[in-house]
C-alpha cells in the first residue's frame, strides 16, 4: 500500500498552503477533504444560477504577499482587487461615509466632529505603529518563552528588539492595548458615537466579545493590520470569490506534484507506538504517511478525530476547554439590482463598497447581550459588502450579490437546537434590519443562503462556527496558540502537526499558519526550507 510522506487533513487554504510548500520541498503529499469541493472557509460556490457566493470568508487583506508571490498565485489565477468606500449606518438616519480620498474623508469626519477629524490622524499613526510590530510576527514561529533552545532565545531577542523600537511610552501603551476593550481604546480618540462605533466593529467580528469586553482592542488591530499591495488597512476581494484563493493554491500544489482527495472525511488519526502514521477515512480506507498535518481546529483535532488514549494526559482537557465560541452568522443574498440606501448618494465609489449596519455603541453591546442569552438580536451588527459591484465574474451583469456578516449569532439557542425554521427566522431578521436602511430591499431578493454557526460547523467543520478556529484573545495568541508549549506547530504526538488558524497567527485568510507549519515540518525532516520570509512593506 502506498505510503505518503505527509497527509494534510482539510483542504482549506492553510492546508493547501502547507501541502504546497511540502510538495515543493519534494515530499509526496496528499490533502484529504471531507467535502466534495475544496476551500474550507475560503470557498466560492454557485448556489443559484449565475451567482457565485463567497459562502464564508468574503474579503481579504491579510493574505501575505510573500506567499502570493512565492507560490506564483497570480499565474495560478488569483487576483486580489481592492474595493473602495464604506458607509456606516447609525441611528435616526445618521450616515457616516468612508471615502477613499484622505481629503474627502477628513471633510466627512469634520461634518460629524471636527475633534474626531483631527484625532483620526493620531489614531491612524498609533494603529499603524501597533500593526507594524505585530505584522513582523506573522510569518515567524512564536518563540517558546520557557525554552532555552538557542532558536527560541534568538526569536525572543528579535521580538524584544522590535518591541523596544516602539519607544518607552508606546511600550506601556502597547501592553495596555493588548488587554483593553475596543471601546476604551477608542474613547481616547473619538467623541462621536457613530465614528467610535464604526471604528469599534472590527474589534468584535468573529469573536464572542462585546465592544466593552477586555481583549477586543487586539481583535480590532488583527482586522486592520493587513494590507492590499502595501496600503495597510485596505481590504480586497478575490476575483471570482474567496474560493479563487484556495483554487490558486491548490493549482500551485498540483503543479508541485501534490494530490487532493475530496469526499474523504477523516474518521481518525492513526497513532502507533506514540507516532502519528496515517488516517482512517470515513469510507473505511486507510492512508499511511510519515507525518500527519491537521488543518482542523484544535478542538476538533484532539476531541473528534483522535483517540483520547493516544494523547498525553491534559491535552484532551486543554482541547476541550479551547475557547472557540461561535458568535457570528453569514447571510448571502442574490439581488436583482443594486440596493439603494437612505441618505447615501448615488456615488459609485461609496454606495457599493462596504456597508456597516451599526446603530450605536449601545446597540452593539445590546446585540452582544442577546448572544449571551442564547438568542439572536433583532438589531444585529451587519458588515456587508457587494462584491458583484466590483467583480464581473460573480453575478450576471446588472445583478448583484450582497455578503452579510452578522454579529452576533449564538451556536446554541436558549430555546433548544437550531432548526430550519429558526435558521430562516434568523435570516429574516437580517433582511429586516437592512430594510430599515434600504426600503424596498426585500423586493430585490432572488435567492438567499443563511448560515448560522450550526451550518458553518456542519458544512465547513469549524467548531461552533468560529471563523478564527479559536478566539483571538491574549490567552490564545502567540506562544499560547493553541496551547502553551505547543505553539510551534508540533503537537503532543510525534509526527503530528497542526497548520490551521488554531495556530499562530490565527484566522483571517493569511495562509501564514500553513506556511509556518511547513517551515517547521521541513526543519524536522532536515529538508531545505521552501517557505519565504515576509517582505513587510513597512520595513
Amino acid at each position, binding site marked *: 500500500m502506498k505510503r505518503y510522506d505527509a497527509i494534510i487533513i482539510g483542504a482549506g487554504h492553510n492546508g493547501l498552503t502547507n501541502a504546497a510548500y511540502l510538495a515543493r520541498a519534494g515530499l509526496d503529499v496528499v490533502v484529504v477533504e471531507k467535502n466534495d469541493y475544496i476551500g474550507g472557509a475560503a470557498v466560492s460556490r454557485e448556489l443559484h444560477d449565475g451567482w457565485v457566493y463567497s459562502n464564508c470568508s468574503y474579503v481579504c487583506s491579510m493574505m501575505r504577499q510573500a506567499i502570493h508571490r512565492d507560490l506564483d498565485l497570480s499565474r495560478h489565477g488569483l487576483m486580489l482587487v481592492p474595493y473602495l468606500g464604506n458607509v456606516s449606518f447609525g441611528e435616526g438616519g445618521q450616515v457616516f461615509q468612508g471615502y477613499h480620498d484622505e481629503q474627502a474623508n477628513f471633510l466627512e469626519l469634520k461634518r460629524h466632529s471636527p475633534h474626531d477629524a483631527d484625532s483620526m490622524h493620531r489614531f491612524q499613526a498609533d494603529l499603524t505603529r501597533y500593526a507594524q510590530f505585530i505584522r513582523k510576527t506573522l510569518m515567524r514561529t512564536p518563540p517558546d518563552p520557557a525554552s532555552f533552545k538557542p532558536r527560541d532565545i534568538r526569536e525572543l531577542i528579535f521580538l524584544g528588539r522590535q518591541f523596544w523600537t516602539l519607544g518607552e511610552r508606546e511600550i506601556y501603551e502597547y501592553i495596555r492595548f493588548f488587554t483593553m476593550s475596543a471601546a476604551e481604546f477608542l474613547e481616547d480618540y473619538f467623541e462621536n458615537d457613530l465614528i467610535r462605533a464604526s471604528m469599534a466593529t472590527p474589534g468584535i467580528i468573529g469573536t464572542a466579545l462585546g465592544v466593552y469586553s477586555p481583549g477586543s482592542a487586539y481583535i480590532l488591530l488583527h482586522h486592520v493590520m493587513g494590507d492590499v*499591495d502595501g496600503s495597510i488597512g485596505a481590504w480586497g476581494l478575490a476575483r471570482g470569490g474567496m474560493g479563487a484563493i484556495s483554487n490558486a493554491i491548490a493549482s500551485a500544489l498540483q503543479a508541485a506534484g501534490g494530490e487532493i482527495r475530496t469526499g474523504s472525511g477523516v474518521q481518525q488519526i492513526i497513532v502507533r507506538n506514540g507516532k502519528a502514521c496515517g488516517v482512517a477515512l470515513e469510507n473505511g480506507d486507510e492512508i499511511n504517511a510519515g507525518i500527519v498535518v491537521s488543518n482542523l481546529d484544535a478542538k476538533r483535532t484532539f476531541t473528534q478525530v483522535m483517540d483520547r488514549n493516544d494523547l498525553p494526559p491534559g491535552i484532551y482537557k486543554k482541547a476541550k476547554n479551547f475557547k472557540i465560541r461561535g458568535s457570528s452568522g453569514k447571510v448571502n443574498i442574490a439581488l436583482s439590482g443594486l440596493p439603494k440606501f437612505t441618505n447615501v448618494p448615488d456615488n459609485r465609489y461609496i454606495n457599493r463598497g462596504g456597508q456597516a449596519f451599526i446603530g450605536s455603541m449601545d446597540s452593539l453591546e445590546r446585540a452582544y447581550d442577546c448572544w449571551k442569552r442564547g438568542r439572536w438580536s433583532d438589531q444585529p451588527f451587519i458588515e456587508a459588502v457587494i462584491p458583484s459591484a466590483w467583480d464581473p465574474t460573480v453575478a450576471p*451583469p*446588472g445583478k448583484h450579490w450582497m455578503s452579510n456578516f452578522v454579529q452576533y449569532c449564538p451556536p446554541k439557542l436558549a430555546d433548544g437546537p437550531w432548526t430550519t425554521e429558526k435558521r430562516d427566522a434568523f435570516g429574516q431578521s437580517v433582511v429586516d434590519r437592512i430594510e430599515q436602511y434600504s426600503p424596498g430591499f426585500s423586493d430585490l431578493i432572488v435567492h438567499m443562503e443563511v448560515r448560522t454557526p450550526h451550518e458553518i460547523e456542519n458544512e465547513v467543520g469549524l467548531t461552533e462556527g468560529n471563523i478564527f478556529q479559536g478566539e483571538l484573545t491574549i490567552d490564545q495568541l502567540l506562544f499560547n496558540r493553541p496551547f502553551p508549549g505547543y505553539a510551534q506547530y508540533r503537537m503532543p504526538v510525534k509526527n503530528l502537526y497542526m497548520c490551521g488558524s488554531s495556530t499562530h497567527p490565527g484566522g483571517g485568510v493569511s495562509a501564514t499558519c500553513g506556511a509556518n507549519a511547513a517551515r517547521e515540518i521541513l526543519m524536522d525532516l532536515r529538508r531545505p526550507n521552501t517557505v519565504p520570509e515576509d517582505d513587510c512593506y513597512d520595513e
Partner: protein
Amino acid sequence: MNEIADTTPNQTDPFAGERPMQSPFHPRQAALNLRESWSAWNGYRFAECYYDPEFEYFCVRNACATYDICPMQKYFVTGADAEAMLNRMVTRDISKMKMNRVTYVVWCNDEGRMIDDGTIFKLAPDRFMLTCGSSCVAWLKMSSFGFVNVHCEDVSDQMAGLSFQGPSTCAVLKKLGLDGIENAKPFDIRHFPFAGGELMVSRTGFTGDLGYELWIDKSLALELWDRLYAIGADYGIQPFGEAATNMARLEAGFIMPDMEFNEALKTVHLRHDHTPFELNLGWLVDFKKPHFNGRSALWAEKQRGPEYILTKLDIEGNKPAQHSWLYANKRCTREIGYVTSGMWSPAAKANIALAMIRSEYVKGEIWASIDYEKELRQYTKIARCTVQNKPFWAPARARATPPGDF
C-alpha cells in the same frame, strides 16, 4: 494640412491662448475627474487620474475602462505610393500587411536612432492610418520626398479615439450592437455603422490585456461615450488616466517615450537616444525588405551588438525601483545601467521594472540600489534583480478569439 485650434485672444478670456485644448470627450471626462488631476499631451488637457490610479488600474485588469487617445497623433497616408513610402520610413516590412489589420512599428533617423513608435492601420491598398505619440508632420513630409503619389493628412484633431480596455470589454461591445466583434482577432480592424457615421474598432491597446480602440469622427464622440457608458455601467466602466496606463503598460512590458526612450529628433546629447535593438525591439527591424531609413546604421549595430539592452527585471522586496542605478555587484561599485520604469505590480504581485543595462552585463548578477523615503528620511536598499524574459502580465484572454465575457 492641420486645422489649428482657435487661439485668437478673445474678449472674455485673456488666457484663452494659453489654455490646453479640450478633447471631444472632455465634457464627460471633466465631470468624472473628481480629483481635478490633469496633465497635458500634445496640447490637450489630459487626465493624470480621475479618482485613484490604483482603482483605475484595477478597472482595466478586472472589469473595463476607457482611456482618451484623442491627443494621440493620427495621419491618413494615402495614394498609390503610400505603402512604399511607409515601408521606406519604418523598419518593419508592411508590404505583407493584410487589409483591416494593424501593426506596431518604429522609425529611425539615418543613424538608426529611434524617432518614435506607433501603429499603422491598413484600411485599403492605398490608404493607411499612422498613429503615434508625438507630432510627426515634418518627418512624414521629409519621408514623402521622392514619392509622387502620396498624400498625408493630419486628422489628429478631427478623429476621436477612445481606448477601451479590460476583461469585460468584448461583452460590452457586443451589447453595444457591434455584431461579430467577438471574432475580431488581436490587431484586426472592424467597421460598424454608428449614429449615421462610422465607428472603426481595432483590437489594440496599450495595457497588455483584452481591449479595443474605438475611432470615430469627433462630432459623434459624445454619442459614443454616452452609449458606451450606459451599457458599461453594469460592467464597472470607469475612465482611466495616464498614471493607471503607465502601470498597465509596464506590466505588459511596453515602452513609453520619455521613460524608456528619448525621441531621436529631440535629443541633444550624443547617444542619449536609442536604437530599436537597445530597446529590445530588434524583431521590428526587417533587413530582408527593400531599403528603409537607418538601415545601414542598424545593420552595423546588429553585427556589433547594442551597447545597452532594455531588460525586464523582477526585483526582490517591494520598494519600487524607479530611477535606481544598477550594479554588477552587491557592493555597488560596478555600475551597469539604470531603471527606466519600476513599480510594485498588483497583478503579478512582484516588484517589476524595465531597465537599460549594458549588454555584456545582462547575464551576470544585477543589483539595484533603491532610494526611498520614509517620513522625510532617506533610505537606500540594495536588492537583487532577476531578468525576466516574458511580460509580467499576459493573460490568455488578451489573445483568445472569441474572448470570454469577463
